[in-house]
């Protein structure tokens, strides 16, 4: 399978391999059958695995997640697709009050190996409710694992690892990167919850995940031309967070900037900044800074570029960090 694949194709292959390797794995969602999903992530899978394993569902998100919970209780391993980020809220109770808590409520007697795939975040010029970043809601909920790949290799292997996990996993797919191609290797090179140093550097650490990793890599490349060496850490997992990797990087560089699309207020960056301050206080040359969305609804697409962090906003934050 090694070779250049788009993230979309890498995900498709991951679903295929998971369906092949475990007859208890099922896919459920709206339009995932003949259409192959609105982003074609499930393309061809119903044709090859049948309608009882790749299930087109009624148009009801709470129903999709709630019945997936029941199927998991019966011993199945459902992978559900939420069509767009902003449509997950009707399923919010089923995810945070039911899916997340049932294992603990049953004192470990039941397992809920449900993967909830959500194409998330913006940058594709969509209408409202099609561009949201809601990772903090889910990462805030104990019992859920939350991950987001940034490249084709991780997309493939993290999805397979998520499906194999006995815990519920919120799998956030950076939809603006679906068509980015990359090499997909023959094996997962990291456990699901390890962060990865996407680019080594010595002067400051950029922390990002999902769609913002590319922005940070571009920013690091631009900064290199100005003589600044920026390290880019791809978080990969938002719950749990690989704080050991972050701490090691920040202690080396003395500066940290967290970059995400979601609004800054009470977002992932708030948690990362607080913990890094606690753990790296005497190593920091500047406060941990955050770059992200504003405390406003995701804007109309004609102005989304102003909302989304880009290379310049990241570099501006780097400048502010060095100004301390």
């Amino acid at each position: 399978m090694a070779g250049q694949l788009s993230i979309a194709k890498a995900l498709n292959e991951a679903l295929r391999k998971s369906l092949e390797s475990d007859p208890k794995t099922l896919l459920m969602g709206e339009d995932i059958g003949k259409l192959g999903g609105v982003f074609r992530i499930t393309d061809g899978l119903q044709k090859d695995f049948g309608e009882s394993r790749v299930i087109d569902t009624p148009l009801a998100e709470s129903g999709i997640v709630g019945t997936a919970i029941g199927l998991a209780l019966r011993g199945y391993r459902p992978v559900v697709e939420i069509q767009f980020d902003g449509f997950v809220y009707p399923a919010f109770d089923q995810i945070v009050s039911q899916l997340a808590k049932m294992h603990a409520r049953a004192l470990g007697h039941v397992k809920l190996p449900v993967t909830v795939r959500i194409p998330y975040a913006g940058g594709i010029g969509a209408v409202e409710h099609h561009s949201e970043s809601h990772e903090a809601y889910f990462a805030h909920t104990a019992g859920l694992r939350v991950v987001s790949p940034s490249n084709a290799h991780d997309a493939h292997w993290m999805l397979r690892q998520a499906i194999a996990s006995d815990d519920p996993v919120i799998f956030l797919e950076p939809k603006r990167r679906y068509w980015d191609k990359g090499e997909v290797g023959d094996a997962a090179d990291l456990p699901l919850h390890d962060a990865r140093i996407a680019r080594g550097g010595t002067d400051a650490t950029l922390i990002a995940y999902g769609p913002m990793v590319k922005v940070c890599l571009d920013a690091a490349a631009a900064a290199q031309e100005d003589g600044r060496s920026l390290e880019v850490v791809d978080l990969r997992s938002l719950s749990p967070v690989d704080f050991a990797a972050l701490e090691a990087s920040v202690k080396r560089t003395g500066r940290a900037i967290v970059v995400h699309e979601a609004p800054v207020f009470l977002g992932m960056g708030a948690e990362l900044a607080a913990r890094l301050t606690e753990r790296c206080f005497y190593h920091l040359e500047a406060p941990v800074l955050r770059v992200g969305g504003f405390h406003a609804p995701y804007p109309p697409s004609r102005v989304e570029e102003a909302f989304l962090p880009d290379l310049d906003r990241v570099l501006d934050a780097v400048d502010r960090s060095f100004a301390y």
Partner: protein
Amino acid sequence: MTVKSTARARKKAAPAVPDNLPAGSGAQPELIQLLTPEGERVEHPDYPLTTTPEELRDLYRDLVLVRRFDAEATSLQRQGELGLWASLLGQEAAQVGSGRAMRPGDYAFPTYREHGVAWCRDVDPLNLLGMFRGVNHGGWDPNEKNFHLYTIVIGAQALHATGYAMGITKDGTDDAVIAYFGDGASSQGDVSEAFTFASVYNAPVVFFCQNNQWAISEPTTNQTKIPLYRRASGFGFPGVRVDGNDVLACLAVTRWALDHARSGNGPVLVEAFTYRMGAHTTSDDPTRYRLAEETEAWRAKDPISRLKAHLDREGLADEAFFASVEAKSEELGLRVREGVRSMPDPDPTLIFDHVYAEPHTLVDEERAEYIAYAASFEGGENL
């Protein structure tokens, strides 16, 4: 009760059934009944039921013991041993009838008032009290007796039941599922979505709605403009209204519904028309929203006294039997009282147990920090 609130309650308690019912499926809001409130056995052509005297006595014993358990739990709450209790008083027949209709391989998804169903599934009653005492959020293994954990968010479990039933279809077995919920839950989106999924996928699930007339203070008239059992027809499956205070009718109708579902015919909605004689929970005060006359009218339909009347009338049980039931009732009461009072508080590290099935570094760190913190106190090293 003030004059004003009485008038309001009287207005809200008006009958739910409009008189201009549409023609077609089940135009008459008929109540399936096999045992009259006076204890007279009647037949229904669609729901025949043959019972031995022993079966009738067993049902009677179930009803009495379930009521005793419930009364004991209510008392224990009043004594401060439980934080809260949701009484099933008045709903024993709906729960025992439906619970006894299940086969061992069938699976029940309860709300938080199905103590009588749990009894029929042979779940230790003390397990039900852990959650209300605050020592756990459930605590039993749902797969041991095929009885899922109580679900407090109204109607959420209807979807779990439906998904489980979809899994049964995939497995190709002839098991079936019952989803319990109340009249208030019928307004919830999850219940409608469960109806849709169950219908579309022909899932072997029986939706067993105990219409006890009140969702805390909201009467059924605030939930629906048509008899609840008729909701089913809009989703394409049968709905039946059964006398929820008649244990025989509940048994016969639920058995039929389960067999219908397990035979590949898809879901059934059973509306057990009953009444919550007590408060919603021990925190509630029903005298603020409903009339004593209404409660008294339902008392005349009591599920236990009508079965006793039947046993007496037909000479199916003697004094020795009733004495033995009473003795068992006392025994159960004592066991529940002592069991609750001796129920140990969990170790605080329970907080960190089972959050995830696989290790999670944040939980591991917080557990270690808590243990170190607790150990820093005198005597804390034993934690």
